[in-house]
Each structure stands twice: as structure tokens, then as C-alpha cells.
């Protein structure tokens, strides 16, 4: 296993820049997630690490070697594709052994490694089958096995779970994480699924329009988003954003949104002092919007009044959609909370969990 380093990597197709100046340091044994909406450049970045796309500029190192212009076969990496890309004319065994055979690994060694990988993945009984005789989940395992037997410096995975059904995806996610711990592998994993990113990654790289937005641990991405894009892309339902204006009265800073006033806690006030104008965006996650009476009573500074527009009972919780005049927010309420659509209620935003963004640049003020 080895580290993977990207230095100022860019990819241009004619006039379009698909990946812009990406610099990443993937540490040895790290499970790094590239997360972003489709077209954000995450797959292109991965394919450049694999050598399937040429770099327009920048450099890529795997281990201590500069591989920027090395063909894929000599990079000593393995890749798992979204569509598995198994070789249809070869048996499961041959699929997994192919890369080793090309590298002239001795036969007994090939057999040992394939058997071992098949054991780990629970496909020992399928070695003589052809890919078309396998189910989607089994094919997925074969594709993983083909990567494992190679014992590469790094694993590259391009949305490997997105063709599985929901139940299998959850199950495989857990197995993949366990596999990472067991193999001590360096993995770069591309996904648009934030659940996969949050549950499996040691660090997450959030990308948008070819530009890296933030590199952080799942915890950091969730609790300290660097900008509004990251804040709203990660988390379901998305973080609530409230546009408003600041008014300063001595030491206290008041936030006015939809004609309602809120006194901002000191850490927000401190951060907001960097702003020159008065426009600001306040962010708050649905679970930090409180609607129960006891909780609201405890938070007198940050109360707002809102009309209940819709309640979605999810079983373990209730999703409450609230109108604040021109803006709306979502709150997560306990499943023993009851409200009536159309009622005006007072809710409170947890002051410790507030985020603040520059209205012009959309960047977080809290870092």
C-alpha cells in the first residue's frame, strides 16, 4: 500500500475545464471519498489517477514514484468500475487471475491469492461460473476480488455500489468498510451518495464544477462545512439557510429575517464582525431546529415564529416543514411531537449549532 499525491492536477477538454487545480494528499491506508453531484469532476479525477485520462497539467505520485505519464498497466493500482466490467468470456477464477497471469505470477501463488480473496468475499463456490450466471451482488464481489488479488498500491473505486439494490448496498457498504480495515488498503472512492461518503470515508473531498470545495473528516464536513454548497449537499434534509440582515447595537448583534429578530450568540457575532455589509446567511441543520415547548423555552434568544405547512411522519421522527413568510425551513421533531398544519408555532434554533455564511461569497464565516 502507498500514499497517493495529486499536485495541481487539471483536466481540460477544449475550452471546458472538467477538473481545476486539484491538490490532494491521500495518506497510506486512507479511505478517501470523492463526493459531489454528477459532472463535478470526481470521476475524471479518479480516472486521471488510474491513468485512463491524461493530465492537462499537474502531477500525480503513487508511493514515491511520479506516475503522471505512466500507462495504467504500470501504475500498480486496481480499479472497481460502476458496471463491474467483468470479462464475459472468462470464468470467475480467470477474471480474478487475469491480472496476475499477465504479471507472470507463479501458478500456485495465483491460486492461493484467488482462493483467499474468494474466501474473504464469500464467492468460493462460484469460481467456475461465467459472469452472466451471477447476480448483481455476486458480480460486484468478483470485481472487488479482481482488485484484491492484485495486492495493488491503491484501490480506485468508481461508484461501485450504485448498481445494487438498496438492501444489498447497505450490506456491501459495511463489508467494504470492514475490508478496508482488514486489508489496510489505500482506497480512493468516488460516489455521489453522501451516506456512503459519511459512513465509509476517513476523509471526504467535496467537489463541485471541477473545484475542490472542502477536504475534511466526515465529522468536519458535517459540522464545519466550508461553504453553503458543502453545507447543503451533505445532510438529509439539507441544512436550512436563512437570508437576513445584521444590525449592531453596541455589543449585541441582531439578525433580521422575514421581519423577525434574533439575537446572535457570541461566536456568530464574533465571526460576523469580519463582514463589511449587513447581508448574511444563517445556516441551521433540521435536527437543530427545536419545536417542542420545553426546548423552545430554554432558548429565548433565537426563537422565531413559523407556520406549519406540512408534517411528514417518518416513524422514528417527524419532519416538519415550516413557513417564515418568504423563506421556509425544515425541522426534525421527535415522533411524540404533534402539531397541526396551518398553526403558527414558536420554534428555536440551537445557538451553539448555528452556521454563518458570507451572503456574497457563500463561504463560511466560522473558520
Amino acid at each position, binding site marked *: 500500500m502507498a500514499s497517493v499525491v495529486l499536485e495541481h492536477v487539471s483536466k481540460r477538454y477544449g475550452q471546458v475545464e472538467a477538473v481545476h487545480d486539484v491538490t490532494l494528499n491521500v495518506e497510506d491506508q486512507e479511505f478517501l471519498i470523492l463526493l459531489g453531484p454528477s459532472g463535478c469532476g470526481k470521476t475524471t479525477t479518479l480516472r486521471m489517477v*488510474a*491513468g*485512463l485520462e491524461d493530465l492537462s497539467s499537474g502531477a500525480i505520485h503513487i508511493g514515491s514514484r511520479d506516475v503522471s505519464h505512466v*500507462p*495504467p*498497466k504500470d*501504475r500498480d*493500482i*486496481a*480499479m472497481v*468500475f*460502476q*458496471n*463491474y*466490467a*467483468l*470479462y*464475459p*468470456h472468462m470464468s470467475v477464477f480467470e477474471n480474478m487471475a*487475469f*491480472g496476475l497471469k*499477465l*504479471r507472470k505470477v507463479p501458478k500456485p501463488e495465483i491460486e492461493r491469492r484467488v482462493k483467499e480473496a474468494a474466501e474473504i468475499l464469500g464467492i468460493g463456490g462460484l469460481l467456475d461460473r*461465467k*459472469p*452472466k*450466471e*451471477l*447476480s*448483481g451482488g455476486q*458480480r460486484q464481489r468478483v470485481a472487488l476480488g*479482481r482488485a484484491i488479488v*492484485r495486492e495493488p498500491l491503491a484501490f480506485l473505486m468508481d461508484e461501485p455500489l450504485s*448498481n445494487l439494490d438498496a438492501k444489498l448496498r447497505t450490506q456491501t457498504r459495511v463489508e467494504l468498510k470492514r475490508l478496508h480495515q482488514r486489508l489496510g488498503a489505500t482506497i480512493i472512492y468516488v460516489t455521489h451518495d453522501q451516506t456512503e461518503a459519511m459512513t465509509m470515508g476517513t476523509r471526504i473531498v467535496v467537489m463541485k464544477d471541477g473545484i475542490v470545495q472542502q477536504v475534511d473528516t466526515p465529522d468536519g464536513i458535517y459540522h464545519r462545512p466550508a461553504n453553503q454548497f458543502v453545507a447543503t449537499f451533505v445532510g438529509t434534509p439539507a441544512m436550512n439557510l436563512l437570508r437576513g440582515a445584521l444590525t449592531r447595537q453596541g455589543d449585541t448583534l441582531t439578525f433580521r429575517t422575514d421581519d423577525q429578530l434574533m439575537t446572535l450568540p457570541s461566536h456568530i457575532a464574533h465571526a460576523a464582525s469580519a463582514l463589511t455589509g449587513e447581508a448574511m446567511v444563517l445556516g441551521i441543520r433540521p435536527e437543530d431546529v427545536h419545536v417542542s415547548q420545553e426546548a423552545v423555552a430554554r432558548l429565548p434568544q433565537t426563537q422565531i415564529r413559523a407556520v406549519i405547512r406540512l408534517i411528514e411522519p417518518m416513524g422514528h421522527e417527524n419532519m416538519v416543514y415550516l413557513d417564515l413568510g418568504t423563506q421556509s425551513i425544515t425541522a426534525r421533531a421527535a415522533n411524540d411531537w404533534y402539531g397541526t398544519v396551518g398553526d403558527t408555532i414558536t420554534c428555536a434554533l440551537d445557538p451553539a449549532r448555528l452556521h454563518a455564511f458570507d451572503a456574497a461569497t457563500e463561504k463560511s464565516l466560522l473558520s
Partner: protein
Amino acid sequence: MMALRRFNRGLIYVVLTLAALLYLLPIYVVVVTSLKTNATISLQHMWNFPLHPSFASLAAAWSQLAPNFGNSFYLAIPATLFSSILGALNGYVLSKWRFKGSNIIFFLILFGLFIPYQSVLIPLLRIMDTIGLYNSIPGLILVHTIYGIPITTLIFRNFYASIPDEMLEAAKIDGTGYWGIFRYMVLPLSVSGFVVAGIWQFTQVWNNFLFAVTLTNPPNQPVTVALVNIAGSQTIQWNVQMASALLASLPTLLVYIILGKYFVRGLLAGSVKG
């Protein structure tokens, strides 16, 4: 509804059977005439089944045509193989290793499909003479290989378009390069492509008359030319003539019957996603 559908179905079968019978009538005449003795052949009785079927004319035809049969196999098998392999290589490059201008090159190759053979005969003859391949089977092999490239390129390019790129990328990462991918991935998946191109090319080369009659003299002529020479004798032996035609058409028929079933086989099933 059911009755109507059954009636329609029945009608289709009746029409198709009649069309098939009409199509098979000349072949019937060829077969029965070849089984008659020359004396019993007349225009009045041409539809009749022979009273005393005899294979004498088939034997006579074979003894006359055997060397030319040899020529034809010696011509058709290498020409089919070479043009199929070249077509496969072209198709591989033009579908999986696109480069700037590859579409223009593909278009230019396809252009070869639309050149009428008659228009190139005289210069072709001169060229073959100059390079010393006139009046030889290797010369004909060369001509048919080259004239086969456009159609085989088209067949393989379209066939390879169905091989997913991801699979070839997986092979690249597993350690293959340009030739490795062709050898280990593309070629094993090409069986149906080779069957299609092979049947087509074999039939074309075997049945070709124009190049053969222009570029070869006896005894180097393929069976198609020899067939016409038999008809050119002073007294026409209809039974031998028909028997020769029957023999000359057998190989292409057999190729189709033996290989035709591979047409249907979908070897790619399950390669990407089921």
C-alpha cells in the same frame, strides 16, 4: 379475436410457403436434371422426376471441376481469413482507439464499397501483371483481400461498438496494452463477428466471376469460371451442366448451414450488467 389472429397467421404461412416454393423451383430443376441421363432431357419433360436416377453426371462434373474446386478453396479460404483479420484490426482501431481524423479514414475505407469492379478491371490487370501476380491464385487472394476490407471493417467496427469501454479499461489496468487487449479481450469476443464476416466474404469470393475471369487463365481458374467453360462446349450436356452448378454452389451452402447458428449466439450477454 383469436380466430382472426389464427386466420392471419395461417394466411402468412400460405403466402410464405408459396413464395418459398416459387424460389425453390429453379433449384428443383437443377437437381432433377442433374440426376437424369443426357438422352432423357427435353424441354417437355423438364419438370418430371427422372425415371432412373443416376449419379453419372455428378461424377462427370466432379472429374472436370475437381482441379478448379481446389483452386477455389485455395483462393476463398485465405482471402476470407486475411480480409476478416484485417477488418477486425481496422474495426478495433476505429471503434476503440479513436484518433483525430479516424472518422474520415473510416469514411474513406467505406468508400471502397461503392467502387464498381468493372471500372477498375484494366488498371487492376496492369498492376497485377507488373507485380508478377497475374494469372495466379495468390494474385486473386490479394485482390479479394483488399476488396474485402471495406465490408469487413464495417462489420467489425459496428460489432466492437457493443463491447463496453469499461471492460477494456479494466483490462488496461489489469496490465494489458494495445495488442494485449486485442488478443485477450476483443478477439475472444469476436466469434460472432468473424462468423458474419466469414460467411459474407467466403460467399463473395467463392461466387466471384469477374475478377477470376479477368485475372486468371486455365488451369489457374476458380470453379465459377470453369463452370462457364463447361457450358461453352459445342454440344451442351445439360445434366453435367446442372450437376456442375449444383456442386459449385454446395460449399457456400454448407458454410451457411454449419456456421449460421453462431449468428444468433449473444456472446456478450452478461458482460456489463444483467
